């Protein structure tokens, strides 16, 4: 087949943020009339790449060519004028304006300075008709579902740019019908000759819609393939950074805990978040949770900790039913939770290391019973030493520490409450190799002391090292449970990549 000139071509694009190299010499080639999926876990560099392409960020090095001509968009508006439009995950339209206003904001047809509302609405209807969308364009955007808003956002981007369309996780909160509708739109645009970049964590969708795939990991290009030439297992391995050749034979821990479960969850679930599941937690047991981003792994953690309270099922321990409808209630039952998004859910940035560490314990004691200063200092010093938290001073604002040390501070916060069940969501993400090993050692120590842990991680090798059992989540449901010798990275990858029960969501 004669390869035509690529529509959009990025060569050796590099972007450095203080402390990290977000993109390290990445190449990316998009042809006209194709849907090109961009894949990778959190922090792989996908969003940085599309931000460089769409003008939201300026690259530090490398070239971007549009139809063979070098471009250097300094803003999203400039990129839009060049022909590159972008639709972000959280739809960037204005919910308080009408559909027509959203489509034409800044480009409304006017006469004598007055917007010609009737003409604008007419044009809006005509524009949306191309997408088989027949809706009342004079209503506010927020009276429509996310799927329709996505289509409207796409329509705006296409009408303003018209060559390249970047879709950043457009299907994240859509159901099967809505995904089908969206894909119909995407296919028709592809057939009109647009180049479409598609980002999604749902592998089924990626294979359904994409012509080509590009995989990033840790800011580097892992590979770029035609979709037809790659299978799911290869893809998951590439995303997780494992080559098929260097498969490790290691399996999970064999010292299986057999005691009766300390905490029992029965058909625990919440509509549209996580399908009901059963889960038994034994004393001193590490349960791993494997799944890709958006699979329902974080949702499970938030359910167990009462952040998004369950609406079905129940939890009980030896003494009776547990009420888990708020974090406070969960903490009262001896639960702890280190969230994935440390910045917004974990650290209290302006407060000191000491205050962050004692916070959960203090909250449990109540405001009247302040921990004496000496006790605080002793406890904090102890944690700083035990967890090797690198800080010049325990009074330093925690926001100034590195990611790994912030993670350890939050761990210390929960260890101070001496929990019986601790949930860790991606405890090793975004932290350096040394701290990484220490956190894994710590997880093993804690379980030796009889604490039960649920560890969510996309580092499957890591899960193999410390888990007694591994739960695999996909499409917001728990799909497999592996124990002992069954725990291998291959089996986890296979469970995630398996197609199957996904059909019943539709």
């Amino acid at each position, binding site marked *: 087949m004669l390869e035509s000139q690529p529509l959009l071509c990025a060569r050796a694009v590099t972007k450095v943020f203080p402390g990290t190299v977000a993109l390290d010499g990445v190449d990316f080639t998009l042809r006209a009339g194709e849907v090109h999926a961009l894949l990778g876990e959190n922090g792989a560099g996908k969003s940085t790449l599309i931000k460089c392409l769409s003008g939201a960020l300026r690259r530090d090095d490398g070239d971007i060519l549009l139809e063979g001509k070098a471009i250097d968009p300094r803003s999203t508006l400039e990129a*839009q004028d060049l022909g590159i439009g972008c639709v972000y995950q959280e739809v960037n339209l204005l919910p*308080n304006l009408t559909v027509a206003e959203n489509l034409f*904001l800044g480009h*409304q047809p*006017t006469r004598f300075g*007055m917007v010609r509302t009737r003409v604008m609405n007419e044009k809006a209807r005509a524009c949306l008709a191309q997408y088989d969308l027949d809706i009342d364009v004079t209503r506010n955007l927020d009276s429509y579902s*996310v799927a329709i808003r996505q289509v409207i956002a796409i329509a705006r981007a296409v009408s303003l740019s018209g060559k390249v369309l970047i879709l950043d996780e457009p299907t994240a909160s859509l*159901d099967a019908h809505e995904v089908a509708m969206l894909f119909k739109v995407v296919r028709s645009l592809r057939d009109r000759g647009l180049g479409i970049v598609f980002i999604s964590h749902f592998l089924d969708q990626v294979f359904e819609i994409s012509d080509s795939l590009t995989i990033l990991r840790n800011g580097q290009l892992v590979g770029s393939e035609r979709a037809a030439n790659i299978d799911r297992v290869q893809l998951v391995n590439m995303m997780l950074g494992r080559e098929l050749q260097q498969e490790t034979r290691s399996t999970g821990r064999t010292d299986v805990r057999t005691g009766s479960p300390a905490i029992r969850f029965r058909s625990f679930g919440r509509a549209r978040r996580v399908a009901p599941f059963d889960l038994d937690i034994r004393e001193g047991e590490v349960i791993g949770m494997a799944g890709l981003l958006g699979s329902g792994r974080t949702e499970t953690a938030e359910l167990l900790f009462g952040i998004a309270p369950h609406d079905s099922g129940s939890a009980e321990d030896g003494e009776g039913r547990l009420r888990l409808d708020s974090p406070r209630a969960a903490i009262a039952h001896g639960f702890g939770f280190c969230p994935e998004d440390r910045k917004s859910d974990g650290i209290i940035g302006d407060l000191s290391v000491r205050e962050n560490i004692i916070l959960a314990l203090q909250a449990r004691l109540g405001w009247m019973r302040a921990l004496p200063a000496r006790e605080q200092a002793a406890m904090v010093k102890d944690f700083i030493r035990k967890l090797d938290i690198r800080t010049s001073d325990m009074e330093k604002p925690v926001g100034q520490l590195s990611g790994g040390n912030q993670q350890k501070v939050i761990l210390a916060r929960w260890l101070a409450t001496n929990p019986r069940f601790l949930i860790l969501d991606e405890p090793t993400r975004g932290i350096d190799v040394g701290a990484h090993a220490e956190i894994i050692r710590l997880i093993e120590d804690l379980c030796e002391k009889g604490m039960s842990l649920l560890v969510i991680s996309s580092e499957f090798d890591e899960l193999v090292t410390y888990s007694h059992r591994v739960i695999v989540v996909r499409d917001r449901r728990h799909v497999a449970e592996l124990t002992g010798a069954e725990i291998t990275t291959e089996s986890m990858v296979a469970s995630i990549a398996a197609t199957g029960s996904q059909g019943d969501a539709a």
Partner: protein
Amino acid sequence: MNARLLPLLATVAIFLAAYAICYAQFPAMLSTRVIGNLLTDNAFLGIVAVGMTFVILSGGIDLSVGAVIAFSGVFIAVVLRETNLPPPLVFLLLLAITTSFGAFMGAVIHYLEMPPFIVTLAGMFLARGAAYLLTLDSVPITHPVFSQIQDLYYLMPGGGRLTLIGGLMLAVVLGGMLLAHRTRFGTNVYALGGGVQAARLMGVPVGRTTIAIYALSGMLAGLSGIVFAIYTSAGYPLATVGVELDAIAAVVIGGTLLTGGSGYIFGTFIGVMIMGLIQTYIIFDGTLSSWWTKIVIGILLFSFIVLQKGLVWISSRERVRPAGAK
């Protein structure tokens, strides 16, 4: 029906119901005379409330307007007393000052990223201070043009007088409606209230729009000051204390969301009329005291804030529900 019309309809319904109650008790209240007075007495509040609506629609607030009105009255009175400048020129000069003052506050808000609440609070002190600087006393305005303007009215059937300043308020309301609902600037104001980040991404000139909004509010506060000077024939630096609160209350009772992004200029007009109606009722009744105005306005404020909170809550519930599940 569009859900965003609901608060506006509620406002209109409350106004009509309130007027019906008034009429049932005092049939004399349904006359063009009363309506004419309602428009004249509340002209300055109506004008400044239109400017406040733009500010609040964009997600901001302007606490300086009451002080700017007082400054305007004092400025007009003192300049007319001290110089021989013709009144129209004085008016123009004043509007230029208050408009630049508003634009300056807008620029500080945008470029220094300071909260509008604090910036316009400082603006309120500045404007009031400037008024004190001109005079500490009430300065009467004796220029013949003023009494001529006061005597200008259109005699409505039934003997009511639509005065020039009442008509001016109606014109400002109409102009505000056109500006808000029929121009790109108006849509940009709503866009800012919907979300500054999203608006910027969609190409709204955030800085220019912010400055223009506060400049508009400053200009209308100046215009309101002119109207107030005509209405009272005097300039007094202690006048119109707390008018910014009345204006904000009128905007909220008019169905505009205090967090920005949703509301109508016409609603604000009705809000002003409701507040005027309460006062008129109290005057007609004769036994009730004026403090009931404040309490009733507080109750109305509370009801509208809760109503809007409820609407936001309902629409967010609807959004979560799957649209595809038919």
